[in-house]
């Protein structure tokens, strides 16, 4: 893989994805073998939005490779609060670390920041834009449970603002996958993602309800519909209620349906699904560590 920065899932070819997933598989099979691989390497964590989970997953990944982290800490205690530009912040912090991980509320933040640094920069979420490492761990999970070719995948929930959805949709165009997008009218895929899927000639269908399509799916990827996307509470409750799944509903699904969720969930997947063989979301979250280890290993020069 020849990328200095990972800012968008769009930049990843099928070969790139497979190289990362293969390496992640090797790591998962024998984590010990990688324990000293990047002894002394430091990963700079710049989280301009709270995200305990993604941050912990990156920290675990670099530490399991023998490295450590330098963490900017919360925004309200940093120079950013004093009005420093993102371009300045990353130029300072690149001097402290061998690679950077950036989470930022503005779309395009990672792409812009990457133009100012020489060390590899990884996008850990930019506004409603992209979240490519989440996508890699999602693809790893799908490959393990259903395979990545010849499958139908349903992606449900907030497709308009959900960056994990945007990254995933782009990455899936590399594979033989039928994509079904299930959402309320007001939260459909944004024009730019639709445009790319069309350009790639991807097989894409949009639905407003889950029932009719559920029986034909191999994978159902559920995302949270957020309260703040709706003008009032009752409208939110009405819509959110239509896009939640429970064990009873999954009776109509295939026995081997894989249910995924980037977590944290609120109530869009009922607790009774956890006990079924469909539930893959905790394994999915755990896969974040070997997949991020693989990506870091490759970006930090594991091939040399």
């Amino acid at each position: 893989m020849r990328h200095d920065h990972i800012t968008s899932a769009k930049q990843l070819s099928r070969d790139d994805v497979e190289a990362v997933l293969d390496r992640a598989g090797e790591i998962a099979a024998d984590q010990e073998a990688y324990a000293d691989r990047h002894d002394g390497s430091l990963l700079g964590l710049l989280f301009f939005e709270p995200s305990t989970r993604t941050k912990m997953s990156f920290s675990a990944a670099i530490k399991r490779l023998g490295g450590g982290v330098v963490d900017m800490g919360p925004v309200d205690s940093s120079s950013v609060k004093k009005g420093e530009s993102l371009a300045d912040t990353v130029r300072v912090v690149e001097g402290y670390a061998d690679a950077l991980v950036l989470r930022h509320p503005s779309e395009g933040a990672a792409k812009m920041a990457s133009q100012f640094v020489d060390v590899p920069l990884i996008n850990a979420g930019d506004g409603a834009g992209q979240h490519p490492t989440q996508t890699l761990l999602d693809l790893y999970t799908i490959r393990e449970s259903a395979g990545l070719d010849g499958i139908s995948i349903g992606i449900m929930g907030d497709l308009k603002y959900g960056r994990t959805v945007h990254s995933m949709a782009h990455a899936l165009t590399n594979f033989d996958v039928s994509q079904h997008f299930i959402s309320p009218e007001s939260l459909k895929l944004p024009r730019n993602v639709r445009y790319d899927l069309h350009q790639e000639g991807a097989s894409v269908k949009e639905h407003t309800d889950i029932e009719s399509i559920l029986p034909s799916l191999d994978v159902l990827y559920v995302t949270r519909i957020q309260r703040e996307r709706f003008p009032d509470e009752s409208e939110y409750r009405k819509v959110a209620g239509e896009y939640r799944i429970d064990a009873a509903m999954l009776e109509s699904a295939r026995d081997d349906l894989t249910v995924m969720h980037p977590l944290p969930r609120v109530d869009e997947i009922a607790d009774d699904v956890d006990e079924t063989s469909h539930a893959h979301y905790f394994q999915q979250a755990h896969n974040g560590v070997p997949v991020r280890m693989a990506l870091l290993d490759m970006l930090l020069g594991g091939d040399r």
Partner: protein
Amino acid sequence: MTDQQLRVSKIRNGTVIDHIPSGQALNVLAILGIDGTGGDVVSIGMNVPSERLGRKDVVKVEDRELSQSELDVLSLVAPDATINIIREYDVTEKHRVDRPERVTGVLRCPNRNCITTEGEPVDSEFEVLDDGIRCVYCDTIIRDDIASHILV
């Protein structure tokens, strides 16, 4: 050029941008960053009768030869524009505008959550698509009324 097109007096040296769609002359000047403060002598003809376009706008900028890359940006609002470089009252070069691959620093991204709108030290940058333009930072696509996004 025919006499009919020469409503605005001849210039000695400079650039004449002809066949601008009616009503786009001021947008053409805005895209070129010409607002009069640079001291350029600028003449504008609006709604001039034209055989090809019915009505058209014409812009003449004296003592300045605009480069092809400056002018290609015009294709976004004036795809049929023709450019005449004038030296000593003669048209010495004549060309059309081409659609550029990228447009940098001329337009503002309409996505208020785009990093390029937040005071960072980068110019806006758009990729030119067949039927619109697209922010290379946040991926937002603009299809209609591109002129309304010109940075002023």
